[in-house]
Every structure is written in structure tokens, then in C-alpha cells.
């Protein structure tokens, strides 16, 4: 009996093991499909994984409201909703600006010198996927006015992992020039991408819509990749790519260390050839044409150039935005000694995911911020109240401050801006600034010329803000109140009576303004210098408003009256006749204005770019 039992149990055990070995493994969930690539020989079978975006983690701007799903950047995640249809749909991701219209306005920042010619990016977004893969293809489904994508990068960091590594690398998968497709129809953009040495599930798309006729709209991004490192990469001998040399920005962080070493060495005095005969100022002029990484590399070549390249006069304007991927606390501390005369600093987009800390930034500011006049800190998520405190204390001459999309900055930090009385340009687009803070800022900064409060959702009563502007900031030239929730005709009337010098006014999507109250007509009569007026999606704009604009605002250059049913062709024609400098006119979704009339007007007024968007 016992031998029988042992035989039976052995038999059973063997059967069990066989079943467990051939058991099914659970397949992946969600939006992934596994496709087999056929490679039947000795090489292992590589499985290509296709993924749609899981979550949009960060972006520089978008057209829609916060908390909405219309025209907002969060629409880029998930499966496509519109593609392959073309048109202006709510379910797509749309950036805030397009073309060069915003750059033409006086409210925009003057460009920084030494911007490398291959840096075209104006906006970005970061999209995370479920699973890290070695990318083999990236496809972007663009459904309206395609051609804006200029760079695709991949990150080595997994944003969903619990313990992030200290070293975060970004590799460029593809880079190109801003483009414009022949038609505004939908297309699938799939450039050939480089192979990289790490698996990634975080992509960054950088965008430039300068050449486009209207807003570009993105529907979805598909990431194709393999889970195991491609065999080919192991055998491939790395070829030194000429483009790599111009891209490598790590010199900025290495430069400091090497400079210290070369400065201390005993050098044979070989002389510097003809450079010894050139006057100091001439070498300075030559060196002033180099980009910042080249400046750092040149500083390592010899003592003479080290002296020239570390001369603070070369660092009066410094734009670190093109090097956002490589900038760290170490880089800032190495640059510190050279930047004592810094007047204009652009650190937009830098320092995210721990690359720059608040402490590092503060020490840089304390050392270099004394003469600072312009400070661009758009999308700098490392900023906190302490940083603003240092800026407020150190940069007493500051005239321009850009904190656009610093949405993680605490509301109480904005109170510190009141300590900058010389402020002329302040950008708080998409920040959490509160009513009390903005009122204090307006009280203490009477020199304000350009103010951007677009999508500032924490400000409860814009009428009070408008009232304060009209009493305190009478030299205001441009005001951006995009999507301000509750500006009424009372506030607008006070604003235009106090700020007589207003040239640019953006009241897009301010739905509480009613034309029947006469507020737009009053506006036209009060602001003869008006050059830009956006009344986007204010459904009450009517013929009498346009007639007043025609009669009073002959300097008008940009006008947006999207989505009103009450404007007729007659008043539009009159406006065009009376405003000879008009360059941009957006009459999308104006039901009385049809395409045939637009064609007629374009023929009569060839200098005006008339926009009429469509959904299908």
C-alpha cells in the first residue's frame, strides 16, 4: 500500500509541476497591445509595445480653462478623440498662442542675446506613459494646423516610481525646425527618432507655432518601444556625431572645476600669438558672439581666454532656458563668479525634478541679483516663498518679472512682490496669486506697464482689481485678463477711465461682460491708442461695438471677436476701412460672416490676416 501511495503522489506531483510551468501569465492591462516582431533566428523575439499617453504632467500653457476638458493640455493623454477628422475641436490639446502675433506686442519680452540658432522652442508639454520602453517610434496625432513640433525628448526618470534616482537625464529623440504643413488637415507626425541607451516612459514635446496660420491642436501621442534593450545597440560602435558636440551642455557644470585647475597650474609662457596684439575690447567683442557653452569651453583653453570668458561683462544677459535639461545647482554656483553684473536673466523651464533647488537659486540670486533688471522664471517649479523673498530683497532694480505657469508656487509668496517698486512688467499667467496679494502688488508697484493675469483662478473679484489698476497704475500699457471670471461693466468702465494709455487689452472668454451695457462702446471711446483688443467668445459683441471701434480706434492692429452671432458683414467692412493698420482679425464661429465674405475682404484688404476656424 505504501509503495502505491508514494507512486501516486509522485505522479500527482509531476503533473502539478507540468501544469504550473505551462500556466498563463497575466497580460498587461490598459491601453497596450503586444505585437510580435518576427525574428526567428538565434536572436530572441522582441516584442514591440504600443502605448497611448497616461498622464500629462507638466506644460507651459494651454488655451482652455483650468478644471475644464475643452482645449486643455490634459486631452493629450489617452486614446485619440478626433483623429482622423480635422478641425477645431474641444477634445484636443491646444496651446495658448500661435503665430508671431504675441511677439509683435510690446508686452512680450525682448529676445535674449546668445540664443543658440537651433533652439526654437516656445512651449512644451511632458507626457508620462505606463511602462518604460526603449523607444522605436513616436507618433503625434495632430488634428489642426500641424507642423509645430520642434523637439521630442525622453527622460530616464520614471515619474511613477516611488524612489526616484538622483541622476535625471534627458535625451533628444528628434529635433527639427518649426514647420507648416501644406494644409491645416489632420496628420500623423512620426519622425525617425534616435536610439537611446535607457528605457523611458516620460516624453517631452517642445513646440513652436510661429509659422502656423492658427492654433495647432494635438489629439494623442503614441509611444512605440521594446522592453529589452535592442540587440543592435549593443553591437553598434558609437559614432561621434557632429551634432552632439554642439548639444553637449555639461560643459557648463564642468567648466567651473576645470577653470579652477587650469588657473592654478604653472604654464609655459608660449604667448597667445596675434591675440596678444588685439585690444581687450576687440577680443571681448569677438567672444560676445559665442553661445554660453562655447564660452565655457573657450575658458578652458588658455589663461587669456579664461580671463575674457570669465569677464562679468560677457554675462550681462544670460539665457539658460535652452540648457534647461542640464542646468543644476553646480552649474549655477560655477557661473556665480562671472555673473556679478547680470542685468537680464532667463531661467525659464530650468531646474525641474530636483535639478535646481531653492537654496541653490537663492545663493545665486544673492551673489548676482543686485543689478538685475529682467528676470524670466516661467515654469520654474523649484521656486518657493524663500526664493521670492531673496529676489525681493536683492533685486531692488527689478523691472520685469515673469512667473508664468509657476502653479506650484504658494499664494502667500506673491505678497513679496510688493517689495519691488520699480516693476514695469509682471506676468502671473496661470499662477495661484490671490486677490489680497494682487491688490497689494498694485498698490506698491505704480510703474506697471504690462500686467498678465490670465487664468489666475484664485482672484475672486476682478472688478476690485480693475478699480485698483485705474487708481494706482495709470501708466498701464497692456493688460491680459484672459478667462477672468467675473469682470463686469462697472470694473471695465473704471479701468478704461483710469488707464488711458492702454494699448493692449485681452478680455478673451470673459463671459460676464455684456455689450448691452455699452461697456465696449465706452471702451472704444476711452482708449484711442488701442492696438490690441481680444473679445474672444464674448457672445454679446455686436455691430455698434464695431462701429465705435472703427470711429475711435484707428491704431487697432489685432482684433479677436470669435463666436459672436451679432456682428454683420457691413460693420466688419467699415471696421476694416477705418483701421488701416489692422493685421489680425479673428472672426471664427461668427455665424453671420461666411467664407465667401472673408474671401472678398481678403481681396480688398490684403494686409489683414483674417482667421476663420472650422470644426469640420
Amino acid at each position, binding site marked *: 500500500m505504501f509503495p502505491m501511495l508514494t507512486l501516486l503522489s509522485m505522479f500527482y506531483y509531476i503533473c502539478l509541476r507540468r501544469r504550473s510551468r505551462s500556466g498563463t501569465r497575466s497580460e498587461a492591462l490598459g491601453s497596450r497591445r503586444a505585437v510580435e516582431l518576427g525574428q526567428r533566428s538565434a536572436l530572441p523575439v522582441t516584442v514591440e509595445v504600443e502605448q497611448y499617453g497616461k498622464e500629462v504632467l507638466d506644460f507651459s500653457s494651454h488655451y482652455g480653462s483650468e478644471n475644464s*476638458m475643452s*482645449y486643455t493640455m490634459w486631452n493629450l493623454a489617452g486614446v485619440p478623440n478626433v483623429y482622423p477628422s480635422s478641425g477645431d475641436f474641444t477634445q484636443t490639446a491646444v496651446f495658448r498662442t500661435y503665430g508671431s502675433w504675441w511677439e509683435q506686442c510690446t508686452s512680450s519680452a525682448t529676445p535674449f542675446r546668445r540664443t543658440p540658432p537651433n533652439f526654437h522652442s516656445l512651449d512644451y508639454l511632458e507626457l508620462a506613459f505606463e511602462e518604460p520602453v526603449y523607444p522605436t517610434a513616436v507618433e503625434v496625432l495632430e488634428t489642426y494646423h500641424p507642423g509645430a513640433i520642434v523637439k521630442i525628448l525622453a527622460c530616464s526618470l520614471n515619474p511613477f516610481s516611488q524612489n526616484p534616482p538622483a541622476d535625471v537625464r534627458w535625451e533628444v529623440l528628434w529635433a527639427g525646425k518649426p514647420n507648416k504643413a501644406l494644409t491645416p488637415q489632420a496628420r500623423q507626425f512620426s519622425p525617425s527618432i534616435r536610439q537611446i541607451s535607457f528605457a523611458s516612459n516620460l516624453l517631452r514635446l517642445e513646440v513652436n507655432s510661429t509659422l502656423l496660420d492658427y492654433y495647432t491642436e494635438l489629439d494623442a501621442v503614441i509611444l512605440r518601444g521594446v522592453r529589452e534593450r535592442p540587440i543592435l545597440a549593443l553591437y553598434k560602435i558609437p559614432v561621434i556625431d557632429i551634432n552632439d558636440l554642439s548639444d553637449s551642455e555639461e560643459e557648463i557644470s564642468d567648466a567651473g572645476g576645470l577653470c579652477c585647475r587650469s588657473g592654478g597650474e604653472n604654464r609655459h609662457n608660449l604667448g597667445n600669438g596675434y591675440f596678444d596684439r588685439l585690444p581687450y575690447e576687440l577680443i571681448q567683442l569677438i567672444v560676445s558672439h559665442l553661445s554660453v557653452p562655447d564660452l565655457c569651453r573657450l575658458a578652458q583653453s588658455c589663461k587669456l581666454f579664461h580671463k575674457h570668458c570669465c569677464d562679468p561683462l560677457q554675462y550681462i544677459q544670460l539665457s539658460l532656458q535652452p540648457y534647461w535639461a542640464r542646468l543644476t545647482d553646480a552649474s549655477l554656483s560655477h557661473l556665480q563668479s562671472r555673473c556679478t553684473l547680470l542685468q537680464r536673466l532667463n531661467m525659464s523651464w530650468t531646474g525641474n525634478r530636483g535639478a535646481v533647488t531653492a537654496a541653490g537659486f537663492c545663493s545665486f540670486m544673492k551673489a548676482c541679483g543686485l543689478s538685475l533688471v529682467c528676470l524670466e522664471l516661467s515654469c520654474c517649479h523649484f521656486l518657493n516663498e524663500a526664493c521670492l523673498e531673496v529676489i525681493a530683497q536683492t533685486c531692488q532694480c527689478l523691472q520685469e518679472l515673469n512667473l508664468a505657469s509657476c502653479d506650484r508656487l504658494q499664494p502667500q509668496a506673491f505678497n513679496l512682490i510688493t517689495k519691488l517698486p520699480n516693476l514695469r512688467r509682471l506676468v502671473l499667467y496661470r499662477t495661484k496669486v490671490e486677490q489680497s496679494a494682487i491688490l497689494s502688488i498694485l498698490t506698491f508697484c505704480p510703474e506697471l506697464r504690462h500686467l498678465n493675469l490670465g487664468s489666475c483662478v484664485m482672484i475672486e473679484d476682478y472688478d476690485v482689481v480693475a478699480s485698483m489698476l485705474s487708481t494706482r497704475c495709470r501708466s498701464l500699457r497692456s493688460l491680459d485678463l484672459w478667462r477672468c471670471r467675473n469682470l463686469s461693466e462697472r470694473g471695465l468702465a473704471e479701468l478704461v477711465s483710469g488707464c488711458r494709455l492702454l494699448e493692449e487689452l485681452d478680455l478673451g472668454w470673459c463671459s460676464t461682460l455684456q455689450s448691452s451695457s455699452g461697456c465696449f462702446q465706452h471702451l472704444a471711446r476711452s482708449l484711442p491708442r488701442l492696438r490690441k483688443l481680444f473679445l474672444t467668445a464674448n457672445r454679446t459683441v455686436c455691430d455698434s461695438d464695431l462701429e465705435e471701434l472703427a470711429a475711435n480706434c484707428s491704431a487697432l492692429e489685432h482684433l479677436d471677436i470669435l463666436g459672436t452671432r451679432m456682428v454683420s458683414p457691413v460693420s466688419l467692412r467699415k471696421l476694416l476701412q477705418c483701421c488701416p493698420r489692422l493685421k489680425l482679425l479673428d472672426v471664427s464661429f461668427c455665424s453671420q460672416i461666411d467664407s465667401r465674405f472673408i474671401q472678398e475682404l481678403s481681396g480688398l484688404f490684403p494686409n489683414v490676416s483674417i482667421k476663420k476656424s472650422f470644426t469640420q
Partner: protein
Amino acid sequence: MLSVFSYGRLVARAVIGGLSQTDSRDYSLVSASFGFGKDFRKGILKKGMCYGDDACFIARHRSADVLGVADGVGGWRDYGVDPSQFSGTLMRTCERLVKEGRFVPSNPVGILTTSYYELLQNKVPLLGSSTACIVVLDRQSHQLHTANLGDSGFLVVRGGEVVHRSDEQQHYFNTPFQLSIAPPEAEGSVLSDSPEAADSSSFDVQLGDIILTATDGLFDNMPDYMILQELKKLKNTNYESIQQTAKSIAEQAHVLAYDPNYMSPFAQFACDNGLNVRGGKPDDITVLLSIVAEYTD
């Protein structure tokens, strides 16, 4: 001695029986829709889930199944506005909200509110108005949460009897509560109710419960007992039988609507209010029929 034992056993069984009542299985709705537009206008192709000026949607999410109907107010046609645009866009927006998980299952009024404000975010200047009725089944808690604005509504049928129903919301005769977006020149004179004015309710459901969500085209033409009669014929919980039953209910209502001598619920109500009328009420009919079943992937 023995009686104590047997008594103890009875008590133990009852307790264990009571504990095992709590069902840890997830529920889901197996749903089908059917409907008729009021006039079959030739050449106008409507997309799916739109019947005349009515619109509906069925959406699934990890945590809940959601249905909705909206009855576009036909009076806008006189002012050159297509009434189906508002109801259709409202339902498409609700569907999108659900699919993207931007909702709380226990707050269907929130779905209506968010969806209505999303309509205002559209570049296209939408005009029109409609009623709305949203039904949400929370898979885990087995609760049905509903929101109803206007005269569309739902019935919950268990064991051949109506156990829950929605109430009609009317301002006055033939003028239900409605969500609307009006042109600026008519702001004051167009009826516009806030989404927060919707009636909401929550209650438990059991496996096998039948939920019928429909616009007033059904309820004004078919009294309860006729609907229940049709529902009795529903034997299984598979999609085909539900689709068949929904179709037969809608067809019957459609036939009754054009019967000039039939005393429809609408005619009955009119008579009660002093109007001497008979016959059905030609209207768009939308029927969404669902059965509570176990959740399968």
C-alpha cells in the same frame, strides 16, 4: 439540553446566513437603447444615440455605469436653431466626462453641472435647451444614484412592480425644467434652470432589477401597466433580449402616439386640467433599458 443545542444551531445559522447576505461582487448594467424621431425627415442622417431632438448615452467606467437621456426642446426650431445640437452635445459631453473619470458616482448632479459648464467652454456658440436625466450605478456599493431635471425620467422595476420612479419637474403645462443657453438678446425671456435644480435620489438595487430610462415621449404615451407588461417578457439578461424589449416598447409607444382615439396618459393629464383632448402625443421617443447584472470584464 438538546433544545439548547438545536436553538444554538438555529441562531448560528441565522447569523451566518445574515453575514453572507453582503455581496462582494461588483454589479454592472447591461443596457440597450432604441427610439424614434418624431418625423422621419428624409436626408438628415443622425449619428447614433440621437432620435429626433432626443439624445442619449451609455458609458462605462471602472467604478460605475452611467446612462443619460436628454430631450431637446423643439420650440427653438422656430428661431432657426437646431434643437438636437444642444441635447446631443450635452450627452456627448457627459459621456466624455464619465469615460475620463471626471465624476463622482454618488453625485450625478455634478455630472450635469460640469457638463453644462463645459458646453459654455465650446468656441462654437451653442444655443438651445433640453431636459436631462442621469442614472449612475456604483459598482461596489450597489447603489443607484440619479439626477433628473425636467420631464424625462426613469423607472426601477423589481419583481414585476415599480419600486422607484422619478418625478416630473414642470414649471407649468408642457414646460418642463430645462437647461438652456440663450442668445444674448433673449437672455431674460428664455427659461433657463440651473443644473443644481435637478432632483436627485439614491437607493439600493439588486441583481435582476430592470431600469428603464426614457424621455417623455414614452411616459406620455404608455401608462405603467403597459410598460410592465412588455417588461414581463424579458427573460434573460443578455444584450439581444434587452435590445428586443426596448425596441418593442418604443415601437408600441410610437404606434400609440399616433392613435387619435387612445386615452394616453398625456391626454388624461390634460383632461384633469380642463383641456378636452384625446389621442396620443406625437413626440420623439427614446428608451434606454438596463438590467442589473454581475460585472464581467
